[in-house]
């Protein structure tokens, strides 16, 4: 316990200073959410590269939570879906259901190139399409995998902070 205390004292604040707020049009839902976005992550067929980056985005260094975003377990609690990967056949229906389960107002963020336009998996036999082919997408995050900063920036668009 003591060593942990010492570690806390030694490390101090890890989070990097907040960069300037992202520019660009905020999704429609952002106004009503007003600084609080609960996020439910859906892996629609990802290679898990995006997941690593999402983890980093919510880690101490990038600290997405400071902008009012928080990962939750249930789509009922969520305001936004963070969808990664191409939408595979098996995940198309679950993705649709997850989207249905979220209460209005809601937003969908497609994270990574695969989610945006199928990336390298485009045309593969098990792929239904990009996220936008299945559910309406409000924001996109570019990259393969995307950098944590861009993920945080997309979330900040939603929270407006």
């Amino acid at each position, binding site marked *: 316990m003591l060593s942990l205390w010492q570690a806390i004292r030694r490390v101090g604040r890890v989070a990097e200073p907040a960069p300037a707020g992202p520019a660009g049009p905020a999704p429609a839902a952002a106004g009503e959410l007003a600084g609080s976005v609960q996020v439910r992550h859906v892996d629609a067929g990802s290679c898990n590269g995006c997941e690593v980056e999402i983890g980093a985005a919510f880690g101490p260094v990038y600290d997405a939570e400071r902008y009012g975003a928080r990962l939750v377990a249930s*789509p009922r609690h969520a305001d936004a879906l963070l969808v990664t990967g191409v939408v595979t056949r098996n995940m198309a*229906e*679950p993705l649709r259901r997850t989207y*249905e*389960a979220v209460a*209005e107002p809601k937003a969908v963020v497609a994270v990574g190139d695969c989610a945006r336009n199928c990336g390298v998996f485009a045309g593969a036999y098990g792929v239904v399409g990009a996220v936008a082919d299945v559910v309406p997408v409000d924001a996109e995050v570019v990259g393969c995998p995307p950098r944590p900063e861009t993920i945080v920036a997309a979330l900040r668009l939603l929270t407006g902070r």
Partner: protein
Amino acid sequence: MVAAGLLGAVAGVVAMTGTAWSVALPGLLPLTGLEFDVDPLSGVFLAVGGAVAVAAGIFAVGATRHGLDRPGVQAALPAFIGSLLLVPAAGSIGTLLWCWELMALTSLVLVVAEHRERPAVASAGLWYAVMTHVGFVAIMVGMLVAAGPAEDGSFVAVRAGAADLSPAAASLAFLVCLAGFGSKAGMVPLHPWLPRAHPEAPSHVSALMSAAMVNLGVYGVVRVGIDLLGGGPSWWWVTVLVLGAVSAVYGILQAAVGSDLKRLLGYSTTENMGLVLVAVGACGMFAAGGDRALAGLALTAALLHLMTHAAFKTVLFLSAGSVLHATGSRDLDALGGLRSRMPVTTAAFGVGALSASALPPGAAFVSEWLLLQALIHGLPAPGVVPAVVLPLGVAAIALTAGLAVATFVKAFGIGFLGRPRSGAAAAATESGPAMLAGIGLAALACVALAVGPTVVLPTLADIAGGLVHAAPAVTGTVAIELVGVTGVLSPLLLVAASAVGTASVVGGVRLLARRRDRRRARLWDCGAGPLSARMEYTATSFAEPLQRVFDGVLASEQDVDVSHHRESRYLVAAVSYRRALPDRVERRLYTPLLHAMTTWGRVGRGLATGSVHRYLGYGFVTLCGLLALLVVTR
């Protein structure tokens, strides 16, 4: 039936308010004579029994209309109710014993009523019959010993003669009576009949037994210990208190891990009677220690808890009967989702469950609060025994309360909410109006006792005070105010405050929330397709954590059986899991006894070998022995 119940209830209420009457019928019951004598204490039990009989009777009308009752049951039920009401009215030992056995006989007929449907009924009937018989013999011996110095068997004479009883005889009488009456009240370790017989009887009979008949066990303890024998030493009551506490904890623990709805309710009866016995024991202990005011308080708590228990147990058993009628099952693991199909039954069961789990504003909360007040204020009493017993008593009650919550959340939540777990539950239909009327009446009583216990409490306090020679311990109209110690509780205000709170929350949400239409959506199934009932938690799985926690006490028997595919040991074809929760007290105490009986029977058969020489030899040897004895003793 209903009329008899009503008559009993009215007579009881009249007697509770102080109008005593008595009648002697020496011509009846040869050699002994019958004598009835109703005093306020009898009145309480008459009123409770009568009220339960009214509700159960109305329910029975419905059950008969549905063809649930056979002619034998229809004939025995009024007799049972009659004898049930006569027991507290008895004014002499002979009369009490007569009515008691009459009650045993009629209830036995009722318990085995459904013997054709389930083999367990016969076994339950046997347990019930034998233990009742044993209990009766204990009561008979105890009461007759108590009546030793008395001129005759009337309670008046016994009361007068109790002073001449030697302490040893009085203690013997009390302990034996305690065993007898305790077994009727389901006191551990004399309880095994209860969770067997109560579930196997038709439900309105279960209600009568569990809500009215068990009370008479407590009646007996109070009548003999406090009234006839005039109190007695402290250790008697410590015994009562400890046995009560053990019963309460053991009963509710078994109920908490059980999944048979009616058996669970039966064990809950053991628990509640245990609590009442704790209160009675505390009363006796305080009285022996000279603190009459607290004794009165404890006894008041006991009487009130008897009443509330009668009310909610009637609701619960009758609702369980309604469910059983609709689904043919009392296994919680196969129920669920009854809310939409049986709304009235569900609501009634909910009221009963709330009362039973001793949460405010439930009915049992008030009585348990009174009991806790008595125990807490008793701690300053001198002596090591109270210092040890009272905290343990409180702890037992506390543990009981917690487990009761778990039990009834399970019974209500698993049994009535959620989605149906079997086709029978999915196809259930609400019971007929007569059955529902019976349930509803009892539920109303629950609500009334929860909100307005102050209507009956002063009367009960008066009666309790009269028994322990103290002033009434409770007064108040809106709030329950304790006399002699500080303590005040107002269930009415509590309900009002909760109502105001609810209204303000609803108002606040209306005010603050943006108006959006409430959307109906499918259950969140992780996106993986519809949830099936097999994915739901069952009563067994619900209770699994508790069962693990208390495994040291419960000693469950689990059996996991994995069968593999023929091709490979690594491919599992099926996993079967079985869990049995044998009653441990029963296994430790009764199994050896039964074994001994079997051995006795086997060895005893050697007495009749069929040899005429041996038979003659018995006489010859006896004759020679007696003659030799005559020679020696000349």
